[in-house]
């Protein structure tokens, strides 16, 4: 371990610099409520279609049901993920990841690092992948996934997704008893910034949310997303899908979704997620997959008999 412990923001800066050097483009956190970095359009949408995509970003991730009023040492309404997506997955992605730990001052020879099988699935987004959780001296610090299916569609080009749980990683590096004791930077503690919102959001999600309003919003958001999908407006549609999803999570946390309704809501979100993935690919195909530079691949996808070649009928 380094003699001077990295602050949380040092960790972010280090990871950003490291992955930028590996060819990832630094995105900013998506400005819409999401439950995980995977839900950001920079991952979810870009994972479909044949275009290469390399990005890294911090994503604040809201999970209303995980709120603990700021009382639990490591469970949070909102935590921060550092998300890296590399598509197509590089042959040395594991080595690149291990390099990032070294950049953080975690020398593999001084620890025990393992790749333990953990396949990831998010049924409501129709997404599934194969991979591992990475254990650092027995603690899970990273989720490592090769996407196989996104939005119910088998991917054309496999994205390697590396998701660091920033609070966990920082807790390990700084060796503090609770996340609230973490040094965010310049001596300001994580608790100084997030304890109050944690309490308030927990209170809101579990006790104070207006369920009638949320139910109405869910219906509105769904209707809007569906309408926008009909117009081929992928990104605004996706925003409303994210809003639907978060609204459902709030309803679920408040316990106001009955058991049978629950499955119904998840089904509605899944249906939208599948549609948006399809429309995203169609719209990118219309643009000619501008990020796809490899001529052989362009032939496969856009050539005379290409998978996405536009024909007269469409």
């Amino acid at each position: 371990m380094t003699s001077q412990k990295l602050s949380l923001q040092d960790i972010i800066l280090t990871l950003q610099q490291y992955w930028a050097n590996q060819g990832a483009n630094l995105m900013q956190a998506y400005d819409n409520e999401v439950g995980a970095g995977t839900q950001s359009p920079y991952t979810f949408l870009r994972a479909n279609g044949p275009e290469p995509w390399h990005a890294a970003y911090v994503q604040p991730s809201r999970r209303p049901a995980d709120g603990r009023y700021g009382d639990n040492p490591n469970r949070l309404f909102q935590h921060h993920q550092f998300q890296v997506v590399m598509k197509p997955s590089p042959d040395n992605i594991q080595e690149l990841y291990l390099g990032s730990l070294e950049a953080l001052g975690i020398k593999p020879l001084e620890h025990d690092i393992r790749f333990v099988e953990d396949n990831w699935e998010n049924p409501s987004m129709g997404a599934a992948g194969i991979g591992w959780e990475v254990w650092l001296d027995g603690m899970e610090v990273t989720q490592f996934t090769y996407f196989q299916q996104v939005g119910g569609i088998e991917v054309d080009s496999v994205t390697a997704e590396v998701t660091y749980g920033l609070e966990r990683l920082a807790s390990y590096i700084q060796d503090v008893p609770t996340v609230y004791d973490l040094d965010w930077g310049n001596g300001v503690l994580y608790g100084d910034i997030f304890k109050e919102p944690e309490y308030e959001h927990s209170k809101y999600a579990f006790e104070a949310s207006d369920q009638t309003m949320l139910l109405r919003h869910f219906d509105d958001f769904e209707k809007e997303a569906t309408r926008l999908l009909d117009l081929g407006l992928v990104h605004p549609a996706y925003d409303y899908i994210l809003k639907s999803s978060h609204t459902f999570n709030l309803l679920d946390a408040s316990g106001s979704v009955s058991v049978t309704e629950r499955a119904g809501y998840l089904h509605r979100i899944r249906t939208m997620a599948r549609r948006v993935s399809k429309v995203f690919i169609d719209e990118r195909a219309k643009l000619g997959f501008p990020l796809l530079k490899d001529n052989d691949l362009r032939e496969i996808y856009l050539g005379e008999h290409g998978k996405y070649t536009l024909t007269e009928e469409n």
Partner: protein
Amino acid sequence: MSTFLLEIGLEEVPAHLVTSSESQLVARTKEFLAAHRLTVGDIKPFSTPRRLALQLCDVAEESEALSEEKRGPSVERAKDENGEWSKAAQGFARGQGATPEAFEVRDGYVWLTKHTTGVPANQILSQIGEEVVSQMKFTTYMKWANHSFLYVRPIRWLVALLDEQVINFNVLDIATGRVTRGHRFLSTEHVTISDAQAYEETLQSAYVLADAENRKAQIKSQLETIANRNHWVLSLDNAPAQDLLEEVNNIVEWPTAFSGSFDQKYLEVPDEVLITSMREHQRFFYVRDATGKLLPHFLSVRNGDTAHLDNVIAGNEKVLVARLEDAEFFYREDQQKKIADYMAKVKTLVFHEKIGTVYEHMQRVGLLAEKLADALDFDDDKKTDLARAAEIYKFDLMTGMVGEFDELQGVMGEHYARLFGENEHVATAIREHYMPTSANGNIAKSDVGAVLAIADKLDAIVTFFAANLIPSGSNDPYGLRRAATGVVRTLTTKHWHIALQPVLAEFMAATGAVTASADLMAVLSFVVDRVRKLALDDDIRQDIVSAGTDNFATADIVYLTDRIQVLANHAHDNNFREVISALTRVARLAEKTPVSLNVNPQLFENETEKALYAATSELQLVALEANGAEALYQALAALQMPISAYFDATMVNVDNEQIKNNRYAQLNIINQLIAGLGNLEDIVIK
């Protein structure tokens, strides 16, 4: 003689697939070698999380040459009218890569002797990539990068060496070579193997123990050394410890065992919770003292050497403490509430969205359990315990502990039930109702637990059938087959004769819409099908299993199981063939829906009729079945002689309607007895 080495370098393979993949690689390689007639000596397999490999010793220089005789057209067809070789003959020769000059004429046909010369080993082995490596099958697959090729994990390198020579082939864009990779951290990335024989030593010097058995033995000995030094009792002989050892072995390449500790205060938490935290969540081995008391220490294995082991120990201890802290918190919190509080929450817990809540499931199970208890003549105490257990047995699902440690469902239920003042029988039944938890898992010991286990599973089967969520093919997402197997195994282990048909019919009548659309016959067939499966697993002949499970009547599972065994036992009798022939002859003639079962002795025309009548008039199916399938078989076997004599002397289909009907009545009576053994016509007699 040469040595061949094949190594498939992979990203970390799931631990539970490493050993089976190693065996598969050997099996496929053997098939490959046989198909190419290439002789080798020993095959030595290797596996680690990052590689599957094998060494073929004493590889022959080339495959065995082969002489095969191929028969061509007949002599008449081989020559045309001019005495020249016909088109057919020339075509045959061409097809075998020869000319008609090579024909031999024998037995009225033309023949060619086809010599296949030996193919050099290196040429054959260059096909192992396509014919073995690419053909491997796994239970989980993935693709990577822009490939569509599926494999268990990405292939990152390939080594193929015949002695010092690289055997060239590709899988995807990966070409074989002599460069392997050592331990991820302890070794440099690329390690060169000079010679196929040097594989194990080369890897050992690169901090990889490639021989999985050897690696496991080392782990075991390291763990035992630490335990012995500290006077801890470590038991590795039980199945969960063996599984853990197997898993740990397949997540390390260079094992170093270490021990860690946790605060005494956590020992107040139930042992099962501590063990689950250590074993299931952290892959630690737990230790006890000489008296069997759990100790606040654990053993684990690092993938690396002893350098900076203190970091590793501290990190692992910290993670465990965080888990135990949670566990202790839940344990304390859970006891602040009452069973009734948890039951109130169970009312909102879904059983299945199409069926309803767990609470409703429990209420039905209570009803079914009561009917089963009646059928089993339980005394009042047992019935009271059963009713109470059925009322609360899922409450622990709503506790914080089970929310966090879901594998402890039932176990925590039993524990908390005791703390909340439930009696021993009720507490035990709560844990036992999940049993058996695996195909060969233990059966509930207590009577109350066993009935609850059966009722819980049967209700699931009936309601899922009613909701048309019926398993098909290999698709059984709700584990209904496992549940049915559990019912069968519990009934047979307990030796409980219960006629499931009337019990379930009453149950369905009493539970209304949620079970109404279930086809009771389909449900019973589904359960009986598990009897069939278990008997087949016991290596009982398929025809006998079919005979014993057909005509399952009221679906008394124990009786069905017994009669299969009885038939299987008697299949070795000298007179089995005669007995079955005689009885199936009766069965074939008898009417499916008997018109009459009244035999009038006045209408007999010969002695054999009288004799058969005398032999059967005392036999009562109900009484015989009550004495068991063996008694019934004995009684029917005793009829073999009278039946044979009867058929020798008696014509059944005579013109006289009265006499004919009287004879059918006689056969029908016997056939009803025969049906008590199943459908004997299924039995194949040679």
